């Protein structure tokens, strides 16, 4: 049992660190949930990809470096420690790409992945509907067979990044007569500027259009934009749900970097006699450390031929609650400045704590609510009986 990195891994870390040291913007980019910030973050994706840092774990032919899980973790640690911008392409890179790599055709991979890696095409997700959130399999949007493709109709909600993104991916009901709700669904990709698509941006808690409602009225998509077999969409989407909740959605580097900044903030002026606040800072440090080590253990299991399954639900609950607690502690440390919006001219750290706090509040909701995750933990890891939700 060890925590050692190989010479190659250390060299990889040094290369990433050196690159980031010269390229990370000196001042934070505007929030990626604004038109101006979205464009700036898209440009940053291009900068990353020009030197193959945007998708390090992908195969080289699609713009990656073929990095191992551990190297990806190293990159992420360096990335967030360097204070680099949030990733506007994360929906595509973390959710769609793993599905394509597992179920996509060679043609789809060659066509879709390189422009995703460069930020030329930014993806939004189109899973939830007004009546289908946690009970996603009850979704009603339809895909009707047409000549050479499908016609999509219906309404999608809470589509992250859809206000400014180029394309979206999601599930549509292609066989309304199927015997179970999760059968008869098809996984489809479509352009957000196609005929018949209406995008209505929705302001998140702080008013920024972080997500959108999508109205689809007979939107034509060709067969080559279906992933996997028609009718098998649920299986295709869920096969990588472990990825989403597990190792790839929120890397430990985000939280170890945030915990380091929290400690610096605490040291820079907190009342040393306020042990209640000190304990919360310590808990954030311990939590970030625990999440990093838990992930290393997971990466070691994968390297030893194992897999991440329902354990990924442990991760999701842990990091999402850690993220909120960490940011709440930071805002409390900021005293009267803790209530300033990230847009306030005098907001500490260019508003990054306020922005991070708003972002963290969504964590227990997206990618499967923490209530759903706890059901999964209880039923699949502890073996408790299923019950009414």
């Amino acid at each position, binding site marked *: 049992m060890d925590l050692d990195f190989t010479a190659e891994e250390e060299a990889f870390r040094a290369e990433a660190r050196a690159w980031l040291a010269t390229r990370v913007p000196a001042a934070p980019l505007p929030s990626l949930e604004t038109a101006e910030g979205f464009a700036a973050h898209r440009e940053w994706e291009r900068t990353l990809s020009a030197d193959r840092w945007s998708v390090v774990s992908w195969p080289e032919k699609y713009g990656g470096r073929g990095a191992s899980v551990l190297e990806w973790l190293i990159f992420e640690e360096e990335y967030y420690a360097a204070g680099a911008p949030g990733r506007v392409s994360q929906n595509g890179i973390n959710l769609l790409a793993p599905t394509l790599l597992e179920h996509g055709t060679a043609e789809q991979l060659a066509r879709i992945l390189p422009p995703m890696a460069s930020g030329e095409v930014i993806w939004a997700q189109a899973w939830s509907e007004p009546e289908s959130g946690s009970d996603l399999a009850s979704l009603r949007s339809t895909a009707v067979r047409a000549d050479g493709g499908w016609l999509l109709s219906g309404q999608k909600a809470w589509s992250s990044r859809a206000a400014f993104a180029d394309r979206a991916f999601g599930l549509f009901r292609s066989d309304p007569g199927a015997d179970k709700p999760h059968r008869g669904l098809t996984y489809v990709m479509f352009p957000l500027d196609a005929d018949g698509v209406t995008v209505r941006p929705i302001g998140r808690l702080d008013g920024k259009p972080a997500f959108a409602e999508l109205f689809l009225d007979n939107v034509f998509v060709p067969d080559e934009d279906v992933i996997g077999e028609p009718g098998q969409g649920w299986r295709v989407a869920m096969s990588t749900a472990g990825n989403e909740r597990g190792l790839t959605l929120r890397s430990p580097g985000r939280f170890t970097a945030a915990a380091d900044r929290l400690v610096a903030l605490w040291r820079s002026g907190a009342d040393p006699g306020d042990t209640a606040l000190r304990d919360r800072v310590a808990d954030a440090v311990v939590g970030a450390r625990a999440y990093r080590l*838990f992930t290393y*253990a997971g990466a070691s299991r994968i390297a030893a031929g194992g897999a991440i399954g329902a354990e990924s639900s442990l991760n999701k609950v842990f990091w999402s609650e850690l993220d909120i607690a960490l940011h709440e502690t930071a805002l409390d440390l900021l005293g009267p400045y803790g209530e300033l919006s990230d847009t306030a001219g005098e907001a500490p750290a260019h508003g990054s704590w306020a922005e991070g706090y708003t972002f963290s509040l969504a964590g227990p909701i997206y990618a499967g609510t923490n209530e759903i995750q706890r059901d999964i*933990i209880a039923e699949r890891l502890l073996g408790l009986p299923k019950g009414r939700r």
Partner: protein
Amino acid sequence: MRFLLDDEQQAFARSLDGMLAAAGTPAVVRAWAAGDTAPGRDVWARLAEAGVFALAVPEQHDGLGPLPVELTVAFTEMGRHAVPGPVVETVAVAAFLDRLGDDAAAAAWLPGIASGKTAASLCLLSDDSPYALDAHAADAVFVVDGDAVRLAGAAGPVQPSVDPARRLARPLGGTVLARGPEVAAAAAHAADVAALATAAQALGLGRTLLARTVEYARQRTQFGVAIGSFQAVKHRLADTLIALEFAQPLIQAAAVVLAAEDPASGREIAAAKVAACEAACAAARTALQVHGALGYTEELDLSLWIRKARALRSAWGTPAACRARVLAP
């Protein structure tokens, strides 16, 4: 990096688990609490035979260690079975003597610790801890007071702990064994080893508390269904598992860092201690709540685990002390 226990370490854990399950530890704990230490010493001898105490003793004194990773494996299993006695204190004394640099003292005590002949206790008066655990049952009680270490001559009256198997007493009198700055350094190292072993023990306790409670929630029916099918119960049990799962790698990493004699090991151990003890206490609260009134009884063996979880929380580093150390510059 391979941040996983190897096959041999996993087999070691399984064999200790099997041995301790067969030993019927609840009865051993109850006997120990009543002052009958014979069944406990019998378990002690079997742990020694399995090599547990030798893990803390260097080879030149008939040991196999120090092997912190294997020690945490062993203490997790001892916690799983709520093994009574000064197990933590004995390995802490071994760590103390290993670090002290007094060859005569090491030769006098370490072989006996490795073989299981000697059960030792340790009291670090300099850390504001007034009691020695199981002073009456130990073969030797080491007391560190400032820059001196002495062997206690006697012990004051037993002050019962919330954990009936933990018999606390003030060490009294005795003869000075060694004096000097190396005593304080060795004591600090011993405190680290004790904190790490306690964290591992707490993890094991929590694992058992959760497993027993899951088992109960699957069997106990109310309103015509198993109570484990209710979300309120499920989610509490899920949170208990999360806390334990994220404490475990902190313990393992602290052991790896301690083995490497990394100067950062104190912070890592403090993080492991606070996370594991909080997880174990939360598991105890969950176990109590889900078992209902039954869980609030002394006769249910679960009470032995519930009460030990509370006691270990303040042993070898309170939550506040651990958190302060996590942030120490």
